[in-house]
């Protein structure tokens, strides 16, 4: 019996996944606190609670995300790029390009057939094109960020935003609310503006099919659709797991590799 765990301490959320005999048997997600070490401990506690697994049964654990170096109970820290690539290709083996939109960054990762990293590009300098952009807009609209996708699908006359900058777009949203534009049309405009910025980053490296999206924003159908249109391709959706957990899943897969190596070296 091999039980391993993966932890992804992100800027906004902290995720954890437990794999048992190469199957996901438990997952947990919490909002990140100011201290990554505490967020990691909290998510671990939640995960153990929910699965009834004891921490001592976890033979290997790998951490990722911006707070990975601070996690005390992991055997190894692995970069987010590697973990997202690993996790996405495990669920969609044909994936060659992975677009991960996190709470405060965006990464585009190119992998070869064997899962080896070919190239990647990342934006963590500008809030536009990251989850933060959607958070800011949802707040102005007084809706939950999870509603942006659902609402935008019902839009009949999507609004075009002149600017990609989060600050300017926020002012535009307020203007459109005041001029009584429909919530659905404003949401559609927000999602397209978001997709535009991500497409700009994506087009900076040569993309290859299949393309899949990870991270919380992958749950926003409006962004996924708009991005697919802009890139001229269909984006494959991860259905077997929450796209927001992919980093943690990738980390757990690395932990599993470590566990297998340990077993084989002991056997030898």
């Amino acid at each position, binding site marked *: 019996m091999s039980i391993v765990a993966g932890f992804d301490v992100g800027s906004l959320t902290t995720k954890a996944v437990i794999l048992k005999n190469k199957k996901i048997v438990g997952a947990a997600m919490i909002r990140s606190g*100011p201290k990554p070490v505490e967020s990691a401990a909290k998510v671990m506690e939640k995960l153990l609670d929910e699965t009834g697994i004891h921490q001592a049964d976890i033979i290997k654990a790998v951490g990722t995300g911006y707070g990975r170096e601070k996690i005390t109970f992991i055997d190894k820290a692995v970069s987010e790029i590697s973990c997202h690539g690993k996790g996405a290709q495990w669920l969609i083996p044909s994936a060659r390009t992975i677009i991960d939109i996190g709470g*405060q960054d965006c990464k585009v990762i190119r992998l070869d057939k064997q899962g080896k990293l070919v190239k990647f590009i990342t934006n963590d*300098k*500008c*809030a536009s094109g990251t989850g*933060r952009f959607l958070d*800011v807009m949802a707040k102005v609209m007084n809706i939950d960020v999870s509603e942006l996708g659902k609402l935008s699908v019902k839009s009949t006359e999507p609004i075009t935003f002149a*600017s*990609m*900058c*989060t*600050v*300017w777009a926020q002012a535009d949203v307020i203007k459109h609310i005041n001029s009584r534009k429909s919530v659905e049309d404003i949401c559609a405009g927000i999602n397209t503006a978001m997709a535009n910025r991500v497409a700009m980053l994506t087009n900076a490296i040569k993309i290859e099919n299949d393309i899949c999206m990870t991270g919380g924003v992958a749950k926003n159908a409006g962004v996924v659709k708009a991005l697919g249109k802009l890139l001229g391709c269909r984006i494959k959706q991860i259905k077997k797991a929450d796209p927001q957990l992919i980093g943690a899943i990738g980390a757990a897969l690395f932990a599993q590799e470590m566990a297998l190596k340990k077993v084989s070296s002991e056997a030898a």
Partner: protein
Amino acid sequence: MITAGCDIGSRTAKAVIFENNKIIESIVIPAKLDPAESAETVMKLVLEQADLRIDKIGKIVGTGYGQQEISFAHKLESEIVCHAKGAWWSIPSTRMIVDIGGQDSKAIKIDKNGKVIRYTYNDKCASGTGRFLEIMADALQVALEDMGEMGKTFNEKLIISNQCVIFAETEVVSLINENKDVADILNALHHSLGSRVASQARSLIIEQDVVMTGGVAKNIGVFEALSTGIGTPVKALENIDPQINGALGAAIIASEI
């Protein structure tokens, strides 16, 4: 001939009355939602100050992002040309103008006759514009016009590492939570804005004299940080509100029609 310049910006509207190569009156008002209304109001108020009727004004030149809505303008001119003209008229040795407005920033190179040679313009990203300071003033709960002075007395060198306004705001909130001194945070913010616009200016290759204009030039912290960033002392307009420089340029251009 009496002339007028009217600069309808995104945040403020400015007007200048000009006669015999002198500024007679000038005014700065907060912009209204409708640029046409801003134009009407700012012109009405400056005329009242000068005790003049509009039919006494020979020519009026309009500029700024809302220039198309100025119904009484005889001519429209770009902000770049107006800022160049205004600064060159005030300080003839000017070869470069750095203007930070409410929602944009520009660096303009001019020749000895005040003619524009090259310029860069940013209105795509809020970082590097007056909006950066407005958002930070809100986060710190200080008045925009007090920021410059308040940032002067600093003790600890802090660094704002993010250029993006949204991310920098988060950094400021963290610094507040860490009980950092407001003056120290302000100092870091002024440096951040000053160095961001300095690198925009440096892309044109710096030539002296460099003059800073626009509302943000009133912030001594940003003013000094800009000097540091471009590596040469920046000049300020003498006895002229840097915020009216565009309207002044427009009024001068009107006198040349």
